[in-house]
């Protein structure tokens, strides 16, 4: 179908964008790549009164390489990450993830900030950035604040983003030289949304290890016991399977059926295997 009638404005600065968002008299939505929003408008699932186009704001395209982290502007595209055109704090994990995200024609326009803002439960970035212990930086009428990605996404399409706030960047800690990453996306066709995602990041030098399940019927699910087990090093596959199952069973609010529980277990086992060879 065709998108419903809408007004459109392209502000010149982030401050102006936030001002427009805070003072709009109709439902205003921020648009960057539009790769979910325009699809939802075409399907008439979303019908905002005003689109505020932030895709070209220089503040949101900035990538800064700090000694301990990289901040990626919200409007950095998946394709820019895939191609290594921006600094990579993750030893190849983020480019690898980006290359599995939808299709190239979507990745050239879709943005990392847009993925976080929508927080589709099956999307890659919320889970991957949670596993990397990244923070999301929000800019709003009352200033700037940061939240851990593990706290930012609260449920299915639900986040702590306030109506007058825009995601400015994602701050991703740099991994140590000997850190390891595992990533598995289970889906029936290349580029589809995941049926199950598993992300493992181990960084012994920083005393850090986290295993996260994505596409998990809610916010990215940190597998706490599994993370502790993997931190200890190579483990018995039976013990690993049991620990993953325990973590999944404890997340009773996710209402996994047997098939889903099995998918998430297999994804997590394979992702852990990539790290503990």
């Amino acid at each position, binding site marked *: 179908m065709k998108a419903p009638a809408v007004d459109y404005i392209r502000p010149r600065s982030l401050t102006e964008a936030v001002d427009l968002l805070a003072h709009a008299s109709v439902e205003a939505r921020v648009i960057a790549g539009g790769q979910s929003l325009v699809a939802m408008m075409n399907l008439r699932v979303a019908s905002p009164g005003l*689109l505020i186009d932030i895709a070209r704001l220089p503040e949101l395209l900035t990538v800064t390489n700090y000694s301990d982290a990289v901040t990626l502007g919200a409007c950095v595209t998946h394709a820019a990450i895939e191609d290594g055109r921006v600094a990579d704090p993750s030893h190849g994990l983020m480019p690898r993830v980006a290359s599995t995200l939808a299709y190239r024609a979507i990745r050239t326009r879709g943005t990392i900030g847009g993925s976080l803002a929508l927080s589709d439960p099956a999307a890659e970035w919320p889970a991957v950035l949670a596993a990397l212990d990244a923070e999301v930086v929000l800019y709003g009428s009352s200033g700037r604040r940061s939240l851990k990605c593990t706290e930012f996404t609260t449920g299915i399409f639900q986040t702590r983003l306030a109506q007058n706030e825009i995601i400015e960047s994602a701050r991703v800690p740099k991994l140590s030289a000997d850190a390891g990453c595992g990533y598995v996306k289970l889906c029936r066709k290349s580029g589809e949304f995941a049926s199950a995602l598993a992300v493992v990041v181990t960084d012994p030098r920083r005393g850090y290890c986290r295993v996260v399940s994505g596409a998990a019927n809610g916010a990215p699910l940190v597998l706490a016991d599994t993370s502790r087990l993997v931190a200890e090093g190579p483990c018995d596959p039976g013990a690993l399977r049991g620990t993953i199952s325990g973590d999944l069973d404890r997340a009773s609010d996710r209402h996994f059926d047997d098939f889903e529980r099995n998918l998430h277990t297999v994804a997590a086992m394979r992702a852990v295997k990539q790290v503990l060879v």
Partner: protein
Amino acid sequence: MTGIHLHINGAAIVDDVPPRLSLADFVRERRNLTGTHLGCEHGVCGACTVLVDGEPGRSCLVLAVACDGRSVETIEGFAGDPVLAALRRTFHQHHALQCGYCTPAMLITARDLILRKRAGSEREIRDGLAGNICRCTGYTNIVTAIAEAAQEIGKEAANAQ
């Protein structure tokens, strides 16, 4: 209505568009460039793929207003492009189209795969084509045609060095 100024297939265009108008409908209905096809209109079928600032994009998911100041290439804009010329030839030789509806976007996607060196194996080509649906299910011949064009272009590039 919002005023936009953009380049389509190299020509400068000035127009007024309602913000809800997609780039696909803009090129088809305002510019009569009907080689860009619309299948699903929500980013799944890939039939509307064009280049925006040199990169493939779904023209059903890009608003025409957001293309103000940008350059767009549709399938009509590749005269003289050596990669597309090779693809046209191999698509013809291998009968890589049946109804033809997906073909313009297949060609634009295949050209991008070849230029980014992502057409080195059948697996790579099939992965790269995952976002372009052919409901005649002619993928076998499409993949063969792209592999051959990629080889030709690769040889030419090696000879040129």
